C-alpha cells in the first residue's frame, strides 16, 4: 500500500511541486521588472554577464588559502553528487524509464562503471560532511546559517545515505526509503536555499552585467 503510494501518486506530486516551483521562481527572477541603468556603459553588460557565470567557478588566487575547505569540499560534494545523480547505473536506468521513454523508444546514455560510482559517492559524502561540519563549527557560518541551511544539508545527506543503503538493489523496502526521501527532497527544494542550484545563474549574470558595464571582469 505504502509502496504504491510512494511509487505512484506521491512521486507525481513531488515531481509537480518541484517542476512548477522551480519554473515559477526562475520566471519571477528572470522576467521580473528591472529598472534600466541610465548611466553610459563603458563595456558590455551582456558579455560581462556570460563571463561571470563561468568565472565564479574559480576562486580568486589570493582568497584560496583562506577558503580552501569550502572550495575543495564544495567541489568534491557537488561534482560527486552530479556524477552519481546522472551517471550511476541505477539512476541512468531510472531516468530512461521515467523520463526518456516514449512509445517503445527510449533514450539513455552510458553509465559510469560501478567502481566510479562508489568513488563519486565517497567524494560526495566526504564533501557534504565536511561542509556541514564547517557550517556548524565555523563562527561565521554558524552565525549566518539558518534552519533552512541545516535542513537542506541533512535532507541531501539522507537522500544520499538511503541510496547507499539500497545499493545492493535486493530489498524493496530500502529502495522505497530512498525514493521517499527523494520525493521529500523534491518537495522541499523550490522553497529553500537548494534553489541556488538554479538561481546562481541569474545572480552571477546580474553581477557580471553590473561589472561588465563598468569594464571590470568579475
Amino acid at each position, binding site marked *: 500500500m505504502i509502496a504504491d503510494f510512494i511509487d505512484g501518486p506521491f512521486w507525481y506530486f513531488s515531481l509537480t511541486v518541484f517542476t512548477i516551483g522551480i519554473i515559477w521562481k526562475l520566471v519571477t527572477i528572470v522576467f521580473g521588472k528591472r529598472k534600466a541603468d541610465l548611466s553610459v556603459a563603458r563595456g558590455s553588460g551582456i558579455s560581462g554577464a556570460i563571463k561571470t557565470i563561468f568565472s565564479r567557478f574559480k576562486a580568486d588566487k589570493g582568497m584560496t588559502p583562506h577558503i580552501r*575547505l569550502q572550495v575543495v569540499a564544495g567541489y568534491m560534494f557537488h561534482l560527486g553528487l552530479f556524477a552519481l545523480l546522472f551517471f550511476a547505473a541505477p539512476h541512468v536506468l531510472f531516468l530512461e524509464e521515467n523520463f526518456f521513454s516514449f512509445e517503445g523508444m527510449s533514450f539513455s546514455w552510458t553509465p559510469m562503471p560501478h567502481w566510479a560510482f*562508489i568513488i563519486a*559517492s*565517497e567524494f560526495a*559524502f*566526504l564533501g557534504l*560532511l*565536511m561542509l556541514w*561540519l*564547517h557550517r556548524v*563549527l*565555523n*563562527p*561565521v557560518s*554558524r*552565525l549566518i546559517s539558518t534552519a533552512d541551511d541545516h535542513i537542506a544539508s541533512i535532507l541531501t545527506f539522507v537522500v544520499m*545515505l538511503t541510496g*547507499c*543503503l*539500497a*545499493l*545492493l538493489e*535486493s*530489498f524493496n*523496502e*530500502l529502495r522505497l526509503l530512498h525514493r521517499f526521501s527523494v520525493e521529500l527532497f523534491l518537495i522541499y527544494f523550490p522553497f529553500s536555499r537548494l534553489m541556488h542550484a538554479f538561481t546562481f545563474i541569474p545572480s552571477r549574470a546580474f553581477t557580471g552585467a553590473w561589472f561588465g558595464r563598468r569594464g571590470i571582469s568579475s
Partner: protein
Amino acid sequence: MSNRFMSKHSQKFTCQIYFFLYLIFFLCLLSPLNVSASGPAASKINNPSNDLWISVRHNTESGKVTSQVKSVDSTVLINPQADRWTRFRMTQLINYGLFILSVVAVVIMLFYLFRGRIKLEEGLSGIMVHRFTDYERILHWMLAIVFIFLAGTGLILLFGRPLLIPVLGHEFFSVLASASKEGHNLFGPIFFVSLLLMLFRFVRRNIYAKGDLTWLLKGGGLIGKSHVTGGFFNMGEKTWYWIVILTGLAISVSGLVLVLPNFGQGRVIMELSHVVHGIAAIILVSVSFGHIYLATKGTEGTLESMKTGYVDIKWAEEHHDRWAKECHDNDRLISAEDYAKLQGRVVLDQNVSASPLMEETK
C-alpha cells in the same frame, strides 16, 4: 525509593545505582554463556566416503591438486581454515567481543558513580585560549561521525544474529543487515581518508615526551587528586591517539582487503583480514567508550575545545600545564568580552541618533 527522606542529590544517585544494576543484569543475560556455539556433532557412523574426503583434504593442504581453471583458490576443494574461522567468529569473537564491550561500559559507569565528574579545582574563569582550529575540529567530528556509523553498522553485522534476530525477526533483520552492510562498505574508505588526515594533522603533537611517564605513574589524575603534568596533549591523549591510528589503520587496511576482493585475495587472506578487522574494531570501540566519556561527562571544560576550539585557561592550567604556560608566555589569553565577540555573540547597545536632516528633506 522514597522522596521524603532523601535529598534530590541522593535521589538522583540512587536512581543511577538502580539503572546501572539493571544494565549489568541485562548484560549478564547476554553473556557468553548464553550464546551457543555451533559446531558439527561428532559422527558415530562410519561414512564410506570419509577416506576419500580425508585424502582430498590432505592433497589440498600439500598442494598436489591441479586445475584447468586458473584463478585464485581454484585448487582448493576443502578449506580447513574455514571451519576454524567460522568457529572463531561465532564463538570467540562474538562472545568475547560482547563481553569486553560490556565490561568496559560497566567499568566506566562505575567509575562515574564513584568518582563523579572531574571538575576544575578553581572553576571556570571565562578567560579563554585558542586550542583547535576549524579544520582540526572538522576533522575530528568527521572521523567521529563516520566511526560511530561504522561501529553501529559493524556491530549490527557482528551481533545481529544472536542479539537482534530474536528481537526484530528474520525479515526485518535481513533488510537492516543489508542496509548496514552497504553503508558499512561505502563509509569504510571515508574513515580511512579521515584517519590519514588526522594522522598527518596531529602526529607531531602526539610524540611521547618528557613528563609522559610521570603522568602515567600518577594514574593520569584519574585516581586520587594528584596534579599531573602535560603538554599540548597529555600521555593519556597521546596513547588514545596511537590506539586510534594503529587499530584504525589495521581496520582500514583489512577493511579495504575485504571490500575490494578483485585483487587476487584468496579465502585465507579474507578470513585473516576479517579476524584482524573484528579484533581491532572491538578494541577501538571499547576504548572509544572511555574517550567519549572523558571528553563529555567525565571532565569539566573539555568538550568546549572540540565545539568552539577555545578552552578556559583554568582548564588548560589543570590538565595541560606546560601548554598553558606557553599560552601565558606568548600572550595568547583572550578576555571573556573578546571571546564573546569572536563567537559573534555581542549585542550592541541601542545607540539612537536622531537626524533633523531627514525631516527636512522628506
